[in-house]
């Protein structure tokens, strides 16, 4: 057996698990969609025929579409054909709602909005949550920090969409400070002009706030508990006995040891955050992938729904893989596993 360094083993293992999980996820979604009673796929194809203006062109187009996705053959070949289209040509089929544009184009139009909203919220809430949690954990003896903590503790598990409704009620309808709908006001022309950007920020404020508030508190609570366990560790006691300055202890001893477990936590929480964020998008009618997914069911647009679920899975799993690559940088023990 060739001797590969520990680090390479770690990467290899992670990539392998990633591909297997991705494959399992796609299969799961494919079969779940096929479980829908009443064989909606053939009805989906008939709908295509109704929409086409010129019956002649549409007939060839539909025959070609059937052959490409093997809709007439048995499920298993359909599955193989579907996966090959997906991985080789990244072609997810036709969307009914916005006929004839292919699904992937529709998704690409609204994906940036979702990614933008999610990425900003997750990074803000994670980073501030960790620093605040570490600070409160460090000062867990003071009355103020424990009082603040019990509030945070209670609020940290409230779903984003309930917070969203609360914020809309208070800030949008109540005080009218922020718009409670869409991503930018219709009076503004999309483009890189400041008016548009300002409107995007104003509209995006409430959805972002509803996600950030609870997840920030969630990170604060978990980091505080983690900080207090680290404070109980022997190497902290030794650092204090060494008479180190407070800042160095907080920075090099507490925060550094926080990063790995909280990074793992971040990777795992992505799936949970995405769930909540999609519903928040729907409530704010924010033009992200979430709203698109929920509306796609209304139009019985299976291809679009299936495409969106694939893209969501893909982004979450890839983000996880990237996080896995960060671990060795944070924790040397992972890097020298092989030695």
């Amino acid at each position, binding site marked *: 057996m060739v001797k590969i360094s520990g680090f390479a083993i770690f990467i290899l293992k992670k990539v392998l698990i990633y591909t297997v999980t991705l494959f399992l996820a796609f299969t799961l979604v494919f079969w779940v969609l096929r479980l829908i009673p009443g064989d909606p796929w053939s009805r989906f194809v008939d709908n295509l025929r109704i929409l086409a203006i010129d019956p002649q062109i549409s007939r060839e187009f539909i025959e070609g579409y059937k052959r490409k996705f093997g809709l007439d053959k048995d499920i298993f070949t359909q599955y193989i054909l579907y996966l090959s289209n997906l991985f080789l040509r990244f072609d997810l089929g036709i969307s009914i709602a916005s006929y004839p544009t292919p699904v992937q184009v529709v998704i690409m139009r609204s994906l940036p909005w979702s990614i933008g909203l999610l990425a900003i919220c997750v990074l803000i809430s994670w980073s501030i949550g960790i620093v605040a949690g570490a600070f409160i954990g460090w000062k867990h003896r003071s009355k103020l920090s424990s009082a603040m903590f019990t509030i945070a503790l209670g609020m940290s598990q409230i779903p984003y969409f309930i917070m969203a409704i609360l914020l809309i009620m208070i800030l949008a309808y109540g005080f009218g400070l922020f718009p409670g709908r869409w991503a930018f006001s219709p009076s503004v022309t999309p483009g890189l002009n400041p008016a548009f950007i300002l409107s995007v920020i104003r509209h995006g404020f409430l959805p972002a706030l509803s996600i950030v508030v609870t997840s920030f508190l969630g990170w604060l609570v978990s980091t505080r508990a983690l900080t207090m366990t680290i404070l109980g560790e022997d190497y902290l006691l*030794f650092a204090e006995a060494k008479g180190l300055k407070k800042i160095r202890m907080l920075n090099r001893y507490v925060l550094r040891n926080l990063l790995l477990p909280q990074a793992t936590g971040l990777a795992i929480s992505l799936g949970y955050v995405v769930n909540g964020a999609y519903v928040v998008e729907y409530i704010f009618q924010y033009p992200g992938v979430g709203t698109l997914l929920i509306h796609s069911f209304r139009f019985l647009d299976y291809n679009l729904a299936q495409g969106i679920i694939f893209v969501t899975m893909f982004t979450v799993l890839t983000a996880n893989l990237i996080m896995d690559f960060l671990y060795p940088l944070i924790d040397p023990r992972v890097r020298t596993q092989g030695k």
Partner: protein
Amino acid sequence: MACESERCMSMLEVQNLEVYYESVWGNYKAVDGASFKTHKNEVFSIAGESGCGKSTLVDGILRLIKPPGHIPSGKVIFEGTNLLKIPEDELRGIRWVKMAYVPQGAMNSLNPIIRVEEQMTDAILDHGSMSKEEARELAGSMLKEVSLPVEVARMYPHELSGGMKQRVIIATAIALKPILIIADEPTTALDVVVQKGILQLLESLKEKYGMTVIVVSHDMAAHAQIADRIAIMYAGKVMEIGSIYDVFEQPLHPYTKGLISAIPAIGKKYVKGIPGLAPSPLNWPQGCRFHPRCPHAMDICSEVEPTMKEVSPERHVACHLYQ
């Protein structure tokens, strides 16, 4: 105690130190009025079985007691200043510059995710006016001092064995040439051969740097090998103090006698243990705390607590037999 010679100028004096822990079940009196004095340039041993409070005593001296533990009374005089009363930053100034500590759990006293070198230099940098480069050189020479290869500096704690971690901590401790080192259970969880190496290393600190080394351990054999003077602790109090030879040859306190006779050693045919069980710190026995297990227990023993008496120069015992 008329002893003015340079040799016995007292380095550290503990006057009936008390360390209590409040718990749901009542007041946990781990250390209940312990007193002793150490001289310059000597190996001073603190011996006692588990639960006698010797480690808590060390934490009290170093002021590392965390709530719910607290120090109701007692003084720790180190070079004339009472460590328990001085402000935090002044204490920080003394820590590691004058007084170093080799903790009990040496195995996990190193920060697992930063290199050994950085954990040595951070103590040096936070106290001295040295540059990073000089600190790194000093760390390297300290590693040589404890016979560890210089490459260890670049390694991470999980790559080192138990014995090597212990030596890294000792190297960190002696970096700023403190005048007092307190080592808490330095040899537990180490193999026989490594133990011998660590004990001889601690002894060499006294000879080479003139440091005072306080060794806390339950292993009487380890004390016998390197100690100059020894204090026997039982149930949160110091029972007997004396030179290692006096205490081993003619132990005064019945507990010390039992302790020494109970050690299974090579060539000893019959070994007699101490009957009964160690008392609980939640309610120490009335009077002398050893009276329930003491073969010479008299009536007075169960009523009045004996005070520490100096039977002969540098020889103390707290027992009614000698009152």
